[in-house]
């Protein structure tokens, strides 16, 4: 179940943006949702702290805004809101991700199963 850390971190921005595209959220809310949707893959491989540099970077770039509001728990939270610029960036990254994964899949399926096993063999041992 444990995914490669590098594979995940490159796509964290994409994940954060797509989470915010569904609605405004605060930091822990995003972690909890990622955790639930990925069968704990995210929290097991990436430290939760990494979320904040990503959010602050997106805010600096103008892809998200932040504001303070009372959460359902009754405490105030810093919420993040995706901007129009962020939505454009999300579309762009989605396209890139799809193109990339298609190419990876194409290479994987073009190789024969025997070769595929031979390639993956030493890596997994």
């Amino acid at each position, binding site marked *: 179940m444990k995914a490669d850390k590098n594979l995940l971190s490159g796509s964290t921005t994409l994940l954060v943006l797509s989470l915010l595209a569904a609605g405004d959220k605060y930091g822990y809310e995003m972690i909890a949702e990622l955790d639930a949707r990925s069968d704990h893959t995210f929290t097991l491989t990436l*430290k*939760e*702290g990494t979320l904040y540099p990503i959010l602050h970077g997106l805010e600096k770039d103008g892809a998200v805004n932040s504001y303070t509001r009372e959460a359902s728990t009754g405490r105030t939270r810093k919420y993040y809101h995706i901007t129009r610029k962020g939505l454009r960036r999300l579309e762009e990254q989605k396209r890139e991700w799809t193109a990339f994964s298609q190419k990876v899949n194409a290479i994987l399926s073009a190789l024969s199963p025997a070769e595929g096993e031979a390639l993956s063999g030493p890596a997994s041992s």
Partner: protein
Amino acid sequence: MHDSNPFETFCAAVCAQVRFRPDRAAIQAELLDHLQDHVGALKERGLPVLDARAEAVAAMGDPVELGKSLDQLHSPLAGWLLAVLKWTSQLAAAAAIYFLILFLGRDLPDLLDPAYPITSRGVLYYQRGMEETENTVLLQPTATARTEDYTLSIPYAVLNTWEDGQRTLSYLLKVTHWNPWYRDPEIDAWISAQDDLGNVYVDGGSSAESGRLADTCRSWGNPLTDYPFISYYDMQVTGLDPGAAQVILTLQPFGVRECTLTLSLEGGEPS
């Protein structure tokens, strides 16, 4: 909550890496929220508080690494520049409001209700304590004149014939300039008049060829009031030749002719 607070230690370790101090408090608040939410979630799953705290902190990862990457995003130079810009703009706004209140209290009443009713035709009478009589003719000046940068016009002019037959032309001179620094020019000192019979009227006396009394035949005036873009002058030509039908007013400072204005002494309605 207790003295050995792992949250505070963690947040302090993160914030120590952030060089731009003004952002530290907000970063700490956000991280504390996260940790408390995480602890809350773990407690619901039945974990003891102390274990939950330790786990929440561990899940965050290395505080120094996190602090360093936040520091990259909260760069001190841009932060301080923005802070200075903010203080400057607030200071300027405060000063603007202060001077606006002074301005509204002091200058606005004058602008709304000027001491001299400039636009009314009564202004020249008001100035000199004159009465309108049957010998008062309201003229209809139309000319405008331009120097390099000033625009001159006469919004109002009257011709008075006194009991002794002397005639006086009184007019309101309006001078505009786009630059408020150039308001209120010394125009009143440099306007001479010449009628269609060749008589010349200057400040301080008429010319020799007019052959008329020097102290009664004059073109002169005073500044009346000024606004940033418009200045008004109360002007007159005294001792006008009874036969004159037209007056040409010339602005000629230091011997340089800047512009002329022609004013007909006829065709006005009797007052």
